[in-house]
């Protein structure tokens, strides 16, 4: 493999219904940042697959894409790992990106290893940071052991250097009025039969405000204690125009619904302006998903709780003696 043939940064723009996934837009922003850091003639390419992909082109430019490559095909109307895997592999083979970023959505998490295996290249999963070494090598920082350990991953002799990144890790950018260029791409997908058949697509209505749109998130863990207590956090979240987020134990107890509100390694990463949390011990599983919040206030009965290491304000108390008073003040 002649790695010097590989140039530019490619971002997979995942279509979610009538929009591009937030996670993908964030990665285009990240690609722009990496491009700027390189300071050479690197371009940000985005690949969008589906049926009717043209409607996303302007949006992709405005989020930073220099070139939008679209693969418009009826066969790609619905995601399938085999078809999308083939399409994205062939696209990467043609465009030979040096770096290839894919959002770590459920779809991206399935697609990225599929494409990496076909390209026989390296893939770093759930990166928490992407950067360049002073000698120019690309470094992908990945968490292990639920975020307790971070490690640098390098892909020295293979290209593209692939990475997945969760939503909320990178910051999206906006370039008002930016225009790029667009190209269409296609490859033969006729070799795929009906080994995989999609029979239904269920979309549940989201409950409450999505975490990534919330400036203030109220987090709760095992220390919340009950479903009734959780309702207090919900009330608090409503008053601050935010949302509640949870840890795995709180989710397992059934106090809150929806995996999409779980913050941490196996959930989402968030960066609200304010993160107020109660009854969370602060296992690495959780802290690696909230460490980028603007300001963190933690309330825990245990003065030695790990969560305090990731907090701006530490309150050692029973949260039930505090939060209802805050709610009362805010109601006035």
């Amino acid at each position, binding site marked *: 493999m002649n790695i010097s043939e590989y140039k530019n940064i490619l971002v997979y723009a995942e279509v*979610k219904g009538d929009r591009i996934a937030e996670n993908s837009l964030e990665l285009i922003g990240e690609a722009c940042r990496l491009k700027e850091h390189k300071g050479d003639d690197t371009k940000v390419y985005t690949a969008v697959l589906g049926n009717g992909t043209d409607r996303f082109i302007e949006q992709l430019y405005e989020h930073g894409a220099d070139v939008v490559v679209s693969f418009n095909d009826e066969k790609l109307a619905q*995601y399938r*790992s085999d078809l999308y*895997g083939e399409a994205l592999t062939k696209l990467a083979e043609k465009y030979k990106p040096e770096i290839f970023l894919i959002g770590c*959505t*459920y779809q991206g998490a399935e697609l990225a*290893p*599929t494409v990496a*295996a*076909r390209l026989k290249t390296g*893939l*770093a*999963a*759930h990166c928490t940071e992407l950067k360049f070494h002073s000698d120019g090598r690309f470094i992908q920082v*990945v*968490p*292990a*052991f*639920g*975020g*307790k*350990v*971070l*490690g*640098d*991953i*390098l*892909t020295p002799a293979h290209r593209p250097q692939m990475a997945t990144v969760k939503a909320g890790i990178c910051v999206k950018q906006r370039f008002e009025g930016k225009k790029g260029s667009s190209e269409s791409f296609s490859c033969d997908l006729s070799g795929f039969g*009906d*080994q*995989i*058949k*999609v*029979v239904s*697509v*269920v*979309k*549940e209505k989201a409950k409450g405000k999505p975490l990534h749109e919330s*400036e*203030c998130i109220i987090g709760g863990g095992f220390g919340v204690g009950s479903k009734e207590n959780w309702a207090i956090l919900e009330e608090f979240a409503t008053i*601050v125009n935010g949302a509640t987020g949870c840890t795995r134990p709180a989710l397992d107890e059934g106090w809150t619904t929806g*995996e*999409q509100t779980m913050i941490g*390694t196996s959930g989402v990463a968030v960066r609200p*302006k*304010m993160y107020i949390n109660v009854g969370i011990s602060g296992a690495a599983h959780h*802290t690696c998903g909230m460490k980028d919040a603007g*300001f*963190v*206030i933690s309330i825990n009965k245990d003065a030695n709780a790990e969560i*305090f*290491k990731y907090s*701006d*304000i*530490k*309150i050692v108390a029973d949260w039930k*003696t*505090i939060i209802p*008073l805050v709610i*009362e003040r805010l109601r006035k």
Partner: protein
Amino acid sequence: MALNIAVCVKPVPDSKHFDKITIDPVTKTWNRCGIPMVISDLDKHALEAALSLRDKFLGKVTVFTMAPETTKENLLEALGMGADEAFLLSDRAFAGADTLATSHTLAAAIKKTGPYDLVITGNESDDGSTGQVSAQIGEWLKLPHIMNVISLEYKDEVLHLNSITEDGSIGYELKLPAVIGVTRKVNKPRFINVMGMMKAKTKPLTILKAEDLPVDKDHIGLSGSPTQPGDIYSPQSGRKAEYLEGTPEEIAQRIVLELRKAGITL
């Protein structure tokens, strides 16, 4: 139709004790600090999925692990849960493998001892959590694969699956042979009883080395891994927790003040 099922499991340090893991500042390696090795959580769900299919449709469940020989105990546990046979892929040549090399090695063992109707893995492991090996086994075997499985049912020789998405789920019909990765929603793993553990010792457990497998030497171990590990470190937090004391009223007042300072719409 009886089902011949392969399940891949990974022995990992028990995630309940991850907080004990430390990093040696000199050698830049992580120290397990005596944390016991267990079968990674989701892999137990994978095994349970295989065992319930076998219990209903008959057939055989074979377990695969790529790990040092010291993890035999974990395979005995899998046999104790009810698996029929186990293969431990253990060779110095496999050490340091990334997901592409790991999946290549597992796929080679599956190819060698198969054919199988279905390969089941956990969606991701507790330790590395890359979630890449399942799909990549599918790719090496050139089989269709689906991850994020939250329910499965086998009917009319087709696997009916539901796979989770951010805002709901996708229902699939999957023709076999195929590879799937399951989440914890898919079932509740059975417990091992004493009888199971006793039987486990009588079941075949074979160690396979690189020379026993149809592996491509360019795709195994550290040297066959496109990704190479660099520095490792503990996450650092730049925050200095200010210890806020006072009456509940005073603390509540301060929280409101901080919300205002942060510019939160109230």
